């Protein structure tokens, strides 16, 4: 009996000792991200996490894709001991965390890993507030009109680039029994951003949007009002999923496009993940949304899909910093990952840099991304990256109320302005020069 007990005790002691030794050497951080499709998660491991750990012995990343990540992180950040070390957020959320004093300033890592020369200045600037860097951009994306080329060709229609062409194609499509733009926001109001951004960028124009969020003009100014008015009237005409968009989920809407019952998807470069995971039986393409008004060039909203921030309470800030630096240092790994379908980070690259055997869909979307972002003077602003949080939330939540005529356009805009004024007073600053 005692012999067994002694063996047991020594075994336990040895295990504890080994565990203790192991943890003394390994410094691990908890990195919380959005829920990822299984294939994407594997790509993260292959092209970032595993190489990082191999190149940095002693540093470990506990990568945790989490559904409803924004809500989960908000709750978890309440307590120092259990906050995640590093987490994903939308660019516009960072301000609240900074105001609450919960984020670690990242200046030393920006310096150490020379991020200023590697990351797009406008993207890096998004995380600069109160004199410090608080977030590092991650996914670089742009809003897109994704179209079914085969269906357009079969009907003798061109990819629309102007307002006239757009109206012509949409009217013809509806007459032919097709859906013009497949979109569904049921159960997911984030989708509404894809709609109003395109009109703000291509009717009001980027400068008007800038002026709006700097407080120089209001929502009721002619350009901005005109954009919403046009969106509403297009919705009334049935262009947006036959007036069903608030009643259909985005998955259902995308199915319609996949089944060739709709011409366009109003989304972004991130749509590529969906296209990759479902066999597309036709030729498709992506480009910027057509101009919605004479004199306003067609442009896409530039975006940072997610940023990374580090909690002030982390015990291993250097590991977090090293990971962020590694992301931009190892451009080769990033390019390989991009070739396999990962979204690119906010760093310049050319299509030729990416490995040769890309899937055609990857190539199509990447080419489109680089195309719409090549002219820095002609880009719009994606709401999830640039718009103030509460105003954006109001727009997303209330857009369908506008569609259903439950609120008048003027009231809608006035209420949006009210929310924006409060945020401007609170210190919100538009993130682009």
């Amino acid at each position, binding site marked *: 009996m005692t012999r067994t007990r002694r063996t047991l005790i020594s075994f336990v002691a040895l295990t504890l000792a080994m565990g203790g030794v192991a943890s003394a050497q390994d410094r691990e951080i908890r990195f919380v991200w959005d*829920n990822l499709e299984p294939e994407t998660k594997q790509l993260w491991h292959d092209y970032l996490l595993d190489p990082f750990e191999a190149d940095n012995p002693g540093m470990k990343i506990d990568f945790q894709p989490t559904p409803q990540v924004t809500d989960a992180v908000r709750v*978890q950040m309440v307590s120092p001991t259990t906050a995640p070390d590093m987490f994903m957020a939308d660019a516009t959320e960072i301000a609240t965390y900074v105001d609450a004093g919960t984020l670690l300033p990242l200046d030393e890592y920006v310096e150490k890993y020379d991020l200023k020369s590697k990351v797009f200045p406008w993207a890096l600037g998004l995380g600069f507030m109160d004199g410090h860097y608080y977030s590092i951009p991650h996914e670089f994306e742009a809003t897109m009109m994704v179209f079914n080329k085969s269906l357009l060709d079969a009907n003798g229609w061109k990819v629309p680039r102007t307002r006239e062409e757009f109206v012509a194609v949409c009217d013809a499509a509806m007459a032919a029994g097709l859906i013009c733009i497949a979109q569904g926001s049921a159960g*997911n109001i984030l989708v509404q951003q894809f709609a109003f951004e395109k009109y703000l960028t291509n009717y009001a124009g980027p400068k008007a949007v800038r002026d709006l969020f700097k407080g120089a003009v209001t929502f009721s100014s002619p350009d901005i009002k005109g954009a919403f008015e046009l969106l509403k009237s297009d919705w009334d005409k049935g262009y947006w999923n036959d007036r069903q968009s608030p009643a259909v989920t985005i*998955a259902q809407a995308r199915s319609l496009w*996949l089944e060739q019952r709709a011409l366009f998807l109003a989304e972004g470069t991130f749509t590529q*993940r*969906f296209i990759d*995971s*479902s066999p597309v039986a036709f030729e498709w393409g992506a480009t910027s949304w057509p101009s919605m008004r004479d004199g306003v060039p067609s442009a896409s909203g530039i975006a940072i899909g997610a940023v990374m921030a580090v909690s002030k309470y982390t015990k291993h800030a250097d590991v977090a910093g090293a990971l962020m630096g590694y992301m931009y240092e190892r451009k080769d790994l990033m390019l390989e990952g991009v070739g396999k379908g990962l979204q690119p980070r906010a760093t310049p690259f050319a299509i030729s840099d990416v490995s040769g055997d890309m899937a055609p869909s990857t190539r199509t979307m990447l080419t489109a991304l680089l195309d719409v972002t090549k002219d820095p003077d002609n880009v719009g602003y994606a709401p999830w990256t640039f718009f103030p949080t509460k105003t954006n939330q109001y727009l997303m939540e209330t857009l369908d109320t506008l569609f259903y005529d439950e609120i008048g356009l003027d009231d809608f805009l006035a209420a949006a302005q009210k929310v924006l004024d409060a945020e401007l007073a609170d210190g919100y600053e538009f993130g682009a020069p």
Partner: protein
Amino acid sequence: MKNLLSRSALNVILLGVLVIHMVPIAVIFFNALRTNENVRRALLSFPESVQFDNFVSAWTTGNFLVAFINTLVIGGGTVGVVLVVNVLAAYALTKLPVLGRDFFIGYFVVAIAVPSFAIVVPVYFGLSALGLVNSKLGIIIVYAAIFMPFSLLLMRSYFMGVPRDLEEAALIDGCSELGALLRITLPLARPIIVTVVLIVFVHVYNEFLFANVLLQGDDARTVALSFYKFVGRFTEDTATISASAVIALAPMLALYFLTQRRFVEGMAAGGLKG
């Protein structure tokens, strides 16, 4: 009634309702066997060809084995705590003179109406201060507290049906109330215990919000969270989700069928009395 509605007519009606009632479950099972493309084309259809790929991919990427074990442990712990506190409380509220009885009954009934997300932030903060975040003990405590009121109601109804004379006989023999509870009432309460086990386990099994916030990392997750792995922010592969749903549902259904005889007994003897 027996004359007008013959047994067979009755069964026809009930079977008819049953078939319609089961359609959603059948659809989940059928769609799990189909491909995503086929489901996209026609939602309701018998499987064109039976293929188990969805199950394989759902099982591996969902990390379901670990999730099942976690859920079993957490569910078991929660059930244990709930049973202990509820048996005591139900006994007192039905059999004994209690100071503030109406208050307590009202308290527990209204307790059913507290939405869990309203308290998630303070609860998280409290657990964090106690070092119980990302621990099974922490979430067991939370679940036990949240799911106890409804099952207390059920248990109370059942105990009301156990004649007081039986316990009083034991009291006369020199037993304490607690002794009477343990020796007389409890053995008779097996059916309702099974009922409570099932109901509480169902709620633990399906709970998402607290699990997502309190359990961090793949190894700690429960089945409810594993199911969500297939629901991206914008994407949804219907057939894969159906397979994931089947995997998630299957053990719950199995547990239910194993216990349903006792469960129905427990409900039959207790029901739901004020």
